[in-house]
């Protein structure tokens, strides 16, 4: 397996920079911090037994790897150690469940009203917490009922335009299909034909919950669906930052998949805003934006930073007249995918997010923007604001909401409308 991950531990100079950034070790003694759990403990992990369980408290946010000046792959080392831990101890039922969004999605979608009632009913959630270990207060999105896949099947787009492939991910499919429709609308507005291949989960939740074999199966299945398009030279865009990163990098670096198909898919993957910004650089993005007189705090999710593409959403939104974005300076909202759902980690995740929530509150805005869906749900939950994907602001600025006669409907946890 690609050992450059493990080998990178030798580059650690013990400078402690990662320690100063780790959002988790700053709020709980349960996790000793990236330097200890990562490069240091890894030396003892060899082929034998997993040496400690504290690594399970690493949220996998990836900030440590980004700031480490010596290129130590700390978060990746932790992620693998976590998988080994659960491989030896058996992955708990709870982790198995929340790691399969497509299974949950397929179960919940047909009975969406009932499932949503249950998801937001305190008594039910109390039972779920005690039996399954999902915290009763953790932010849970609502099932949309009709999936994005289903909705997009009836959609007729332009037929002769250049094509782009849309990897929408599970969040969009089951919980936020309207976000998916906005993505399609914006891409079509810019002269693209949008191909929506049938697709399943990318395996990321399984990976972060320590089930690597199952995660690999999911990655391979998804890659099989996407690779014909990638081979045909088509770009693939994703509005789910973490799922996009899974295909760009993590499937290879963490799951250790060495595969020509994956490589081609990786190289064709673009984060949605990254893709749009590239269009703009080539003078190909339509800039017929109408005025959007709003002040909106923006949080770049940690997984988005892992792409190493800067904050393209801010560059794009700067093109919109009268829209004032406030760039927040907090590394993590705390949720880290499924981390903050867990009974024993919910408090930690909320403590991590506290600063972000109060910084958002300090802006006085009722609206916040963030690229990642789980982070949006956490922000809506923790800061009590409506949290939207940047695409929603672009969609409105293009006036597509008026054309499509559609109200803005935003995140899964806060089906609030934006007025103004």
């Amino acid at each position, binding site marked *: 397996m690609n050992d450059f991950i493990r080998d990178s531990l030798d580059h650690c*100079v013990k*400078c*402690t*920079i990662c*320690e*100063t*950034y780790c959002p988790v*070790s*700053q*709020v*709980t*003694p*349960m996790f*000793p*911090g990236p330097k200890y759990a990562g490069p240091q403990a890894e030396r003892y992990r060899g082929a034998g037994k997993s040496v400690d369980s504290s690594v399970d408290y690493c949220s996998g946010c990836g900030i440590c*790897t*980004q*700031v*480490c*000046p*010596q*290129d130590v792959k700390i978060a990746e080392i932790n992620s693998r150690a976590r998988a080994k831990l659960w491989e030896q101890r058996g992955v708990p039922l709870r982790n198995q469940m929340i790691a399969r969004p497509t299974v949950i999605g397929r179960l919940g979608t047909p009975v969406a009203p009932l499932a949503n009632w249950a998801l937001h009913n305190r008594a039910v959630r109390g039972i779920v917490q005690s039996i399954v270990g999902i915290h009763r207060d953790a932010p849970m999105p609502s099932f949309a009922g009709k999936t994005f896949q289903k909705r997009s099947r009836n959609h007729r787009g332009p037929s002769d335009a250049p094509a782009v492939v849309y990897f929408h991910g599970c969040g969009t499919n089951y919980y936020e299909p309207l976000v998916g429709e906005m993505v399609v609308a914006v891409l079509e507005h810019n002269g693209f034909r949008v191909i929506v291949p049938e697709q399943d989960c990318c395996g990321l939740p399984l990976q972060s919950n320590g089930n690597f074999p199952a995660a690999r199966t999911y990655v391979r299945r998804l890659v099989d669906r996407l690779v014909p398009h990638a081979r045909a030279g088509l770009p693939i865009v994703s509005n789910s930052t973490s799922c996009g*990163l899974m295909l*760009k*990098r993590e499937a290879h670096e963490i799951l250790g998949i060495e595969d020509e198909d994956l490589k081609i898919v*990786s*190289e064709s*993957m673009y984060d949605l805003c990254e893709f749009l*910004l590239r269009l703009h*650089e080539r003078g190909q993005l339509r800039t017929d934006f109408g005025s959007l007189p709003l002040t909106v705090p923006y949080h770049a999710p940690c997984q988005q*930073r*892992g*792409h*190493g*593409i*800067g*904050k393209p959403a801010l*560059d794009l939104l*700067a093109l919109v007249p009268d829209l004032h974005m406030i*760039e927040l*300076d907090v590394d993590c909202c705390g949720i880290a995918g499924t981390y903050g759902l867990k009974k024993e980690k919910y408090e930690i995740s909320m403590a991590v997010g506290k600063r972000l929530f109060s910084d958002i509150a300090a802006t006085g805005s009722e609206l916040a923007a963030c690229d990642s869906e789980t982070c949006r749900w956490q922000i809506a939950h923790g800061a009590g604001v409506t949290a939207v994907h940047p695409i929603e602001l672009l969609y409105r600025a293009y006036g597509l909401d008026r054309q499509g006669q559609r109200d803005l409907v935003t995140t899964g946890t806060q089906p609030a409308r934006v007025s103004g």
Partner: protein
Amino acid sequence: MSYDTVVVGAGLAGLTAALRLTERGQRVMIVARGVGATHLAPATIDVLGYLGDTRVGAPAGSLAALIAASPDHPYAHITADQLATAVTWFGAHAAALGYSGSVGENMLLPTALGVPKPSALAPRSMAGGDLRGGGRFLFVGFKGFKDFHPALIADNLVRAPLPLPITARALELEPPSSRLGDLSGRVIAGRFDADNLTDWLVGELENRVEPDERIGVPAVLGLRSGDQTWQELEKRLGCTVFEVSTLPPSVPGIRLFNALTAALRARGARLVLGVRAVGAHANNGHIDTIDVANATGTVSHAVGSVLLATGGFPSGGLELDSFGATRETVFDLPLIGVPETDRVRFAPNYFDPQPLASAGVPTDDLLRPVDANGHPVYTNLHAAGAILGGAIPWKEKSGTGISVASGYAAAEAILAPAAQSVSEAVR
């Protein structure tokens, strides 16, 4: 994306330059493999602390002697006026830390090992520790906070060579227990931000301070609220309180990083961490695009200028391979201060003169890296900070001073290339 300037490196040099460039309206992106030495070094600006073994009292006044002894020194490419302007400008622009001092004279500030260290500028929360005037000191530590021993500081300082004698004593306090485990400086600072440890500290010290004593505490008084906490302590205790720099991580250094990056964000600069500059495309000695490697591949950005602020060996700006070859990692630039590959590269004793100590990039007076003939390698590539050759920062106590001065000067050279070339011709 296209930028007026891409700054490679997010240490003090890169951030200083970026701030100056954005202040003058440039569109700037900073790319960095990771965080630089800001998080490790105290936030003091040390312009020049030692000439050989002699402690320097007046850094600006000693530059000529330094340059005479080390003609390749980065300061040789920066005029005395520029240096003074840069340092003053820097102090004013990192206003959140409330810098005091000047390039005219050095303060002597205690370190965590009880060594008096010469610094031109210091955050006001540290400046009260200036040892030059002598007097009575109380050093306070927190039990469980590693590598900070007030008795060691007090003991070493009373024996250190100082202009006027001091007395010093030590006190170790037991911080209120918390659910947090390891007491790193960062964690204690977080507690000062969140739980108001100030009340506790005032309570502990109120009746223990003797008249005329100045109180030195570890520099962990909060990340967001450090300056306020310090002010509050002085007010409530009615005496001079000062922060003493700790071993890494450096809380004042993180405050500095945060203040500079906040200012940069407000001016629309982009900071991208976790990526690596890997090369450039040039035409006729002019860089057109710079290549940045991210999660999936390499992206080329069109640039007007590039600033190389990649630090020295510790941050990966320079690399020494196992065959003894040293190289600059982004552009493979010519280096000075590098022994031949078959020569000794390390002297046996740590404090011996080390053959590689001054390794780095040589430049012209516009801080452009030059080849062996003194010609700029690229007309629009400038360099600043620890990547510059000719200095021995840890010995001279000049590291942060070089970063600030050369960062500012390189920005000026980028902003006004034409005007500067004229003055170069006159010189």
